[in-house]
């Protein structure tokens, strides 16, 4: 006998045509699957009533695979072939992965994404993730009693194209139709925004097992806009376990440990961490393979003290995101806590203190992302929700701009601009008679092109010869809803045009984005000085060229000693411009300007005489009137 769910008025599905859709939170440590039943988003539990599925995969020599709790149970026995936190490897090359040396796996040399050697053969992170997704899919099919229309899978906000593509590939391998990939904090906002329908600016603080994301969102009548995002792709609850582990190794004066002992102790540390959420003290006991005994007591105060740096490390991206959104902590109306790690009292306290308000924890922080994903999946599958539909705006993670003279970056679209967007800016020629312009599209926050990421280069040809600064080249940057950037350049008087299309996030790792942002912060002062220097150098070169052009044309207006003085001033300026003393360059420019003042007057007189020669006074007066 079939089991029915309540549909919206007039939306009952025809028999065998239920549009079953699921949301999957594919986490570093744990994964979940959720769906919407009778209008309500719920997580789907396994046979034993557990909603979490540890993102752990264990391969056996006979080719069989264990996923979840069964795999996790044995991870201490066989760490090398029990793969945890595979999300950190998704779409990454070996050199991209932080702390790769600390991972117990056997990596296989391969171009592109890393691969691991397991008893069941060489496996890619995509294949390993697919095992986790397949387990969730099977659970969903069993729970929903039918084939699935599709799934929404969540990814960290900073996942780049390669990582997103790897996630999609894993889903396809698991036999899932991906309706959409959704940013995790956004999914959480959907779960909260729709269920609570509260207007205002919200911060989503998502500290998962392995990643930290902060998003500043604005909710207005069910429509929400992402104002800013930030994060740290290598910071999560696992790091807190690791901190306890280091404390244990130090306290117990342990010698370097074998992998299985490390794994065993890490498990004890995680249990201790979870125990400390509701208890003042946790006991850590373990018997190592060397038959050494570890027996320690960790209290809440010590735990808070040894993890203090991790807690404050999460607040840096929070501050940055707020600054990007042009907001102060007290503009934030509520803080949504996401991720199991936000259960830790010291996290809730630090976040509460920072925003001067109690963070929201009324939805299970482990489940909100999956619930939000399920809500969106339900909508995308074509099921009516009975609530107003909402629009979600996304942002670009890094500024987009182009190179100008002197290797300087001119930002055309600032980071965190909502997409889709289009911005245009006018540029001009640098030299007289310049007929082509090379357009170098860059991405990043730094002032110098050399410190930014090069996206594309193209040339605009066919600019009619004009004096420097007379051409008007309009460069338009357009980013569509999928984050695809197209840049076009058009000379306004002739209409000649050239364009290029690029994918800004392609091949950019998430910690690369983080590094780019951190660099720009760390180098802000240096960059401003470098920029000023480069501007002076460009100005000096322009001045030298203009003066030399004038000399070539009108040297007859000058006495020999005047010419000599100007030539000397040019030489001095050229020498100064080659160096990096901005004051010296500016002084040399002032000197050259002084030496050429008289020359400029004479040239002016000469050209006026040329214009006036042979004309009647009346004509000139009439000209003046016009």
């Amino acid at each position, binding site marked *: 006998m079939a*089991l029915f769910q*309540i549909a919206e*008025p007039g939306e009952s599905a025809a028999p*065998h045509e239920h549009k079953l859709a699921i949301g999957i939170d594919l986490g570093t440590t744990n994964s979940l699957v959720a769906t919407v039943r009778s209008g309500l988003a719920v997580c789907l539990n396994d046979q034993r009533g557990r909603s979490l599925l540890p993102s752990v995969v264990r391969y056996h020599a006979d080719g069989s695979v264990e996923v979840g709790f069964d795999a996790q149970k044995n991870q201490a026995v066989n760490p090398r072939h029990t793969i945890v936190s595979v999300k950190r490897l998704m779409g990454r090359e070996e050199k991209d992965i932080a702390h790769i040396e600390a991972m117990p796996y056997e990596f296989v040399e391969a171009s592109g994404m890393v691969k691991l050697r397991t008893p069941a053969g060489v496996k890619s992170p995509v294949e390993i993730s697919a095992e986790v997704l397949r387990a969730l899919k099977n659970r969903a099919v*069993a729970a929903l009693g039918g084939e699935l229309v599709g799934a929404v899978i969540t990814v960290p906000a900073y996942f780049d194209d390669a990582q997103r593509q790897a996630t999609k590939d894993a889903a396809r391998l698991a036999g899932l139709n991906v309706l959409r990939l959704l940013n995790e904090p956004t999914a959480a906002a959907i779960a909260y925004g729709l269920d609570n329908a509260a207007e205002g600016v919200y911060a989503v603080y998502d500290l998962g097992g392995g990643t930290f994301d902060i998003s500043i969102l604005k909710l207005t009548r069910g429509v929400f806009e992402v104002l800013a995002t930030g994060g740290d792709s290598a910071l999560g609850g696992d790091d807190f376990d690791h901190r306890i582990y280091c404390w244990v190794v130090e306290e117990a004066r342990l010698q370097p440990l074998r992998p299985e002992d490390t794994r065993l102790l890490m498990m004890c540390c995680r249990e201790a961490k979870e125990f400390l959420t509701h208890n003042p003290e946790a006991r850590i006991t373990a018997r190592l393979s060397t038959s050494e005994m570890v027996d320690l007591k960790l209290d809440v105060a010590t735990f808070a003290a040894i993890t203090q740096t991790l807690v404050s490390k999460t607040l840096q991206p929070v501050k940055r995101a707020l600054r990007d959104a042009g907001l102060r902590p007290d503009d934030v109306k509520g803080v949504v806590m996401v991720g199991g790690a936000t259960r830790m009292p010291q996290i809730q306290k630090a976040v509460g203190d920072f925003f001067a308000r109690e963070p929201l924890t009324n939805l299970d922080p482990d489940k909100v992302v999956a619930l939000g994903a399920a809500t969106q999946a339900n909508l995308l599958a074509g099921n009516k929700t009975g609530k107003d539909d909402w629009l979600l705006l996304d942002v670009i993670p890094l500024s987009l701009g182009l190179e100008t003279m002197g290797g300087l970056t001119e930002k055309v679209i600032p980071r965190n601009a909502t997409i889709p967007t289009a911005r245009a800016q006018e540029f001009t020629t640098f030299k007289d008679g310049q007929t082509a312009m090379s357009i170098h599209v860059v991405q990043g926050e730094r002032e110098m092109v050399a410190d930014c990421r090069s996206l594309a280069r193209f040339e605009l040809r066919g600019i009619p010869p004009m004096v420097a600064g007379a051409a008007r080249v309009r460069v338009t940057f357009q980013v569509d809803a999928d984050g695809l950037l197209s840049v076009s350049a058009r000379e306004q008087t002739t209409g000649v045009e050239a364009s290029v299309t690029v994918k800004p996030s392609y091949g950019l790792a998430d910690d690369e984005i983080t590094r780019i942002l951190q660099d720009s912060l760390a180098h802000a002062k240096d960059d401003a000085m470098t920029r000023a220097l480069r501007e002076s150098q460009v100005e000096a070169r322009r001045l030298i060229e203009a003066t030399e052009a004038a000399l070539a044309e009108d040297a007859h207006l000058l006495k020999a000693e005047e010419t000599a003085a100007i030539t000397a001033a040019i030489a001095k300026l050229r020498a100064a411009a080659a160096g990096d003393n901005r004051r010296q360059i500016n002084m040399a420019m002032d000197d050259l300007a002084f030496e050429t003042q008289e020359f400029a007057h004479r040239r002016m007189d000469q050209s006026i005489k040329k214009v006036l020669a042979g004309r009647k006074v009346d004509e000139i007066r009439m000209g003046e009137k016009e």
Partner: protein
Amino acid sequence: MGITLTDKAVKHVNNFLAKRGKGIGLRLGVRTSGCSGMAYKLEFVDEINADDLVFDSAGVKVVVDAKSLPYLDGMELDFAREGLNEGFKFNNPNVKDQCGCGESFNV
């Protein structure tokens, strides 16, 4: 006769209505479609139509249109869990046979 809800069904209907934030009750109905001729309808109710009959079952308003009632009279709606799946179950004394999955039926 009429239509009744089991305690479990009442509890779940009330919960779904509360979470939905609007709606006055639960609509049950049949329509002709499916492999065995008839298919059930189970929907939230935002407004009651002229030809609707309204039953009260432990505080839940159960709405059935006049045409559907003969097929549903005497029915009990239950909420059941089968393995990992859970949902509402129609215990309908009028049904003679149904398709394998029970989504459509014949009277």
